[in-house]
C-alpha cells in the first residue's frame, strides 16, 4: 500500500509521519504538495500536525481551501483512508469530513504531554490491532484541541460508535481530571460514519520507537497496513 503525507505551508509534523511510515514501518510513502490537485495512486492520505497557514483565522480554516483539498474530499468520499493528526484533524473538521469543531484548550495554554487514551472502537481500519477498552499511551501537543459538538451530533457519534479515543488515566478511567483540554466527553479522536476518515489530536507518529518512550503509535499505523492487506486478500 502507498501512503501520501500532505504538506501544507506550516505543516511541521510531515517529516515525522514520513519517518514513521517510511523508516520505521517500511512502507512506501510520498509527500504530497498542498498545491497539487491529484491524489491518484495513494491508498492512505495523512494530514500531519503543525500550523498550516500559521493557524491564522482559526486552526485549519485556511487549509481547507488548499488546492489539494477537493481531491482529498473526493478520495475520502470514495472510501479512501484518511488520517488527520492534530492540525490534520482540525483541517478535517473545517473541511466537513468530520463533524464538530475545535476550540482553544480550556486552560488557554498550549499543552505538550503524554496522555493515556481509551480505545473505544477497536474495529476500525486504524485501530484493529487494539482491543476495545485497551489503554494506550500517546502524546499530545496542541493549543486548540478542545473538541466540541452539539448534543445531537454527540448522540450520533456515540450511537454510531464514532468516538475512537477518549482521554483517560492509566487504568482507563475517563474523568474530568484526565481531560487535558476540555474536550466534550474527553474525546481525543473520532471517525466518520463510513469508518474511513479518522481525526485525532494525539500524535501516533511520536511513539513508534522505544527510544522515544513508547510504541503504541506504531500499532495504529500497523493497523492500517493490516487492514489494507486483509482487504487485498479478500480481493476487495
Amino acid at each position: 500500500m502507498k501512503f501520501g503525507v500532505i504538506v501544507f505551508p506550516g505543516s511541521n509534523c510531515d517529516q515525522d509521519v514520513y519517518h514513521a511510515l517510511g523508516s520505521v514501518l517500511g512502507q512506501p510513502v510520498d509527500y504530497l504538495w498542498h498545491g497539487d490537485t491529484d491524489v491518484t495512486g495513494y491508498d492512505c492520505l495523512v494530514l500531519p500536525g503543525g500550523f498550516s497557514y500559521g493557524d491564522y483565522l482559526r486552526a485549519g480554516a485556511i487549509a481547507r481551501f488548499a488546492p489539494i483539498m477537493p481531491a482529498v474530499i473526493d478520495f475520502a468520499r470514495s472510501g479512501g483512508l484518511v488520517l488527520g493528526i492534530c492540525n490534520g484533524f482540525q483541517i478535517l473538521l473545517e473541511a466537513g469530513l468530520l463533524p464538530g469543531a475545535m476550540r482553544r484548550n480550556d486552560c488557554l495554554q498550549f499543552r505538550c504531554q503524554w496522555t493515556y487514551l481509551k480505545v473505544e472502537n477497536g474495529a476500525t481500519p486504524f485501530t484493529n490491532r487494539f482491543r476495545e477498552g485497551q489503554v494506550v499511551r500517546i502524546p499530545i501537543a496542541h493549543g486548540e484541541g478542545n473538541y466540541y459538538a452539539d448534543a445531537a451530533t454527540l448522540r450520533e457519534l456515540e450511537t454510531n460508535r464514532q468516538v475512537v479515543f477518549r482521554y483517560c488515566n492509566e487504568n482507563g478511567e475517563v474523568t474530568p481530571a484526565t481531560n487535558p483540554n476540555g474536550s466534550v466527553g474527553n474525546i481525543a479522536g473520532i471517525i466518520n460514519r463510513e469508518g474511513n476518515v479518522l481525526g485525532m489530536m494525539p500524535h501516533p507518529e511520536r511513539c513508534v520507537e522505544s527510544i522515544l518512550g513508547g510504541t503504541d503509535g506504531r500499532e495504529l499505523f500497523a493497523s492500517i497496513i493490516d487492514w489494507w492487506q486483509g482487504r487485498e486478500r479478500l480481493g476487495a
Partner: protein
Amino acid sequence: MEPEVYRQMGLTDEEFERIKEILGREPNYLEVGMFAVMWSEHCGYKHSRPVLKLFPTRAPWVLQGPGENAGIIDIGDGQAVVFKIESHNHPSAIEPFQGAATGVGGIVRDIFAMGARPIAVLDSLRFGPLDEPRNRYLMNGVVAGIAFYGNCLGLPTVAGEVYFEPSYSGNPLVNAMAVGLIEQKDIRRGRAAGVGNAVMLVGARTGRDGIHGATFASEELNQASEERRPSVQVGDPFREKLLIEACLDIIKEDLIIGMQDMGAAGITSSSCEMASRAGTGMEIDVDLVPRREEGMTPYEVMLSESQERMLLVPKKGAEERVRAICRRWGLEAVVIGRVTGDGIMRIKEGSRVVAEVPARALTDQCPVYQVERRRPAYLDELQNMDLSRLPEPADYGETLMKLLASPNIASKEWVYCQYDYMVRTDTVAGPGGDAAVLRVKGTGKGLALTVDGNGRYCYLDPETGGAIAVAEAARNLSCVGARPLGLTDCLNFGNPEKPEVAWQFYQAVAGMSRACEALQTPVTGGNVSFYNETEGEAVYPTPVVGMVGLIADIEKRCSNGWLQEGDVLILLGETFPEIGGSEYLAVIHGLVAGRPPALNLEREAAVQELVRQSIAAGLASAAHDCSEGGLAVALAESALAGGTGAVIEFDGSLRPDYLLFSESQSRVVLAVPPAARDRVLALARERGVPAAVIGRTGGRELAVRVNGRTLFNLGLGEMEKQWRESIPALMAR
C-alpha cells in the same frame, strides 16, 4: 547637525567626531543613523570586545568560532552542529509575549543562515519573585511567546532553566538558544563575495517596526521605557517556517554564496557585515525594497527591524532559481542591490545616492571603551559574613520540603508543558533532566544540550560564578553520558560604563575562560547584553552558558531518575562547608551572602571523566549532579524522576545542614547495580576521585540517616506534591 539629533540616537560627541574623521565630512541623517545602530553596544560590543578576547575559541573540532551568525562544531561522519544563544531582555521587559517570541525567531534565523536545519530551542529565563503580579504577567507572556513561536516553527524546546530573584524584577532575562544540524559540505557563511553579484532580500516586507531596537537594547530601562513599546517587533512564525524551508531548499541546490538574517539594525547590519567579512562593498537601492507601508524614508527602510527577512548573495545567474523556490514557499525574493569592489556601502534611492559609508567603518571601527574596573563595595561585607552562627534547622524534613517548593528548585513543568518538546521525533530526553538528549537520525549518535548559569554565585564572586556556570553545564552533559564539545554564552550584565559592572564583567569572563580551558570546551560565539538595569539598579551579573555535547553511542546514555530497586548509590566528590550563595541560605535563612562554593577544575574534570566512563561502560543506571539545594535536593530529584525511593546512610564530620545543603561543586550521585559497585569504586580510586557509598535505592520513601541520626524520612508522594504544585499554585494567584 544639532548634537541632540545624534545624541538621541545614542551616539556621544566623541563618537560623532570620529565619524566625521572617518568620512572626512559631516555625515547626513541616514549615515548617522547607520553608525548609531552599528556602533550601539548591542551591535558594536564596544564595552566588551577586549574582554571577550580572553575566551578560548579553538579546538580541532571547532569548525566556526565567534564572528559568524553562529558557531559550528564537528560531530563526525561529515556532520556538524550549529548553535548560538542570544538575549531578548529589553523587548521582553516591556512586551513579554512578542519580545520573547521574536527572540526565538532571531536566534533560529542565525542557525539556518549558516545553512543548517534548526533542530532544537533552549531557553534560559530569569524573573523577579512570583508573588508580584507584574512578574507573573512577565513570565506568562514570555513563556507563551516562546511557545507561540517555537511550536509553530516545529522546533522542540528541549531544555532550559528558570530562576527567580528580586534583582530581575524590573528587568527579566530572556535568553534563547537554537541548535541546528548540517552536512559540513552545506555550510555557508555570511559573506558577500563576488563583485557584481546580486544582493537579494527574501521574506517579509519591510515596515516601520523596530526602528532603533538595537539602540534601545543598549540603554537602561526606566519609566520612559514603556514608550519604547513600538521598538519591539511583532513576530510571524508562520512566515519564518516558510523562510526556513525556502532557504534550506536554496542551500540544497547550492545557489548562494552567503546569507545572513536581519535582526538588530535590519538591512544596515546584515548588508555591511556581509560586505565587511568578504572585504567587499555593496550598493543597495531602497526603492527596490518591498514595503508594507507607504511613504517610508530611506532611513526607515535601512533601520527597520521587521522580522522574518534574510539577505542572500546568490551565485551569478542563480537569481531566477532563488526566486522560483521562494515563490513555491509563498515568499517574495527581490534583488535590492549588488556587491561592489570598493568596500563602500552605497545606499541609493532610485538614482540618488543617500548614504555612502565604508562597510568596515560600520563593523570594525566602532570605538572600544576600557572603563576603569572597580571591585564593588558590597562584596567585602557579603563575602565575610559569618554564616557559622546560623542555627541548624530543627526539622530537616520540613527544610527539604521548603526547598522543594522554592520556585528555583520546584518542577518547571508549568513552563515546559507549554512547549512542544517532542516535535521532530528526536527528543530522547526532554526537559526536566540534567541535559536534553536528541538522537541524530540515521546514526547511532546523540546530542546533549543544556543551558546553565547562577546569577547569585556571580553576584557574590563573578570569577568563581562564571567558572561554575561552565563547569555545571559540562557536568550536566557528562551526567547524561555526553562529552562536552563547546559552548555559546549570553552575558547579561548591568551598565558597563559603571566601574563595578565593568569589574564584574571582566571577572566573570575570566572565570569562564579558566573553566573553558580546563574542560576543553571552547567558546564558539555568543551575545553580550548590557544595561540590564532598572532605575539604576543592575541585575545580578548573569553569564549563561549553552553547551553542546556528543554521545558516541546513544544506547550508552543515562538519566537522573532512579528506575530500579537495589542500586547502590555512590557520591562522587567531596562536600565542604559551603553554604554561601546557596538556595538553603536564601530560602531557609533569608540571606544572599557568603562566598559561592569553590571550584577545583582538576577535580571537576576528573569527576566528569569518571561519570562519562561509567556510563559508557554501562556501569551506571542513573547519574545526577548536586547543584542548587545540595545533596538532599539531588537525592529527592532522582527519587521523584524515577519514582523510586532510597535509604541513605553515611557519616560525616560537618554539621548535618552543611552535609545536606552545601552546594559544593564537582559532586555527582551515581546509581549503580550492586555488581558494578566495586568496579566504579576502583575507577574512582584510579582517577583520584573521592567516592563514598551512601545508600541504596528502593521503596517509596527517601530516608536519610547521618552519623546514626535519622534526619528525615519523607514519602515520595508528599515530596512530589510539594515540588510539582509549587509554581502552578503561584501562577494561579
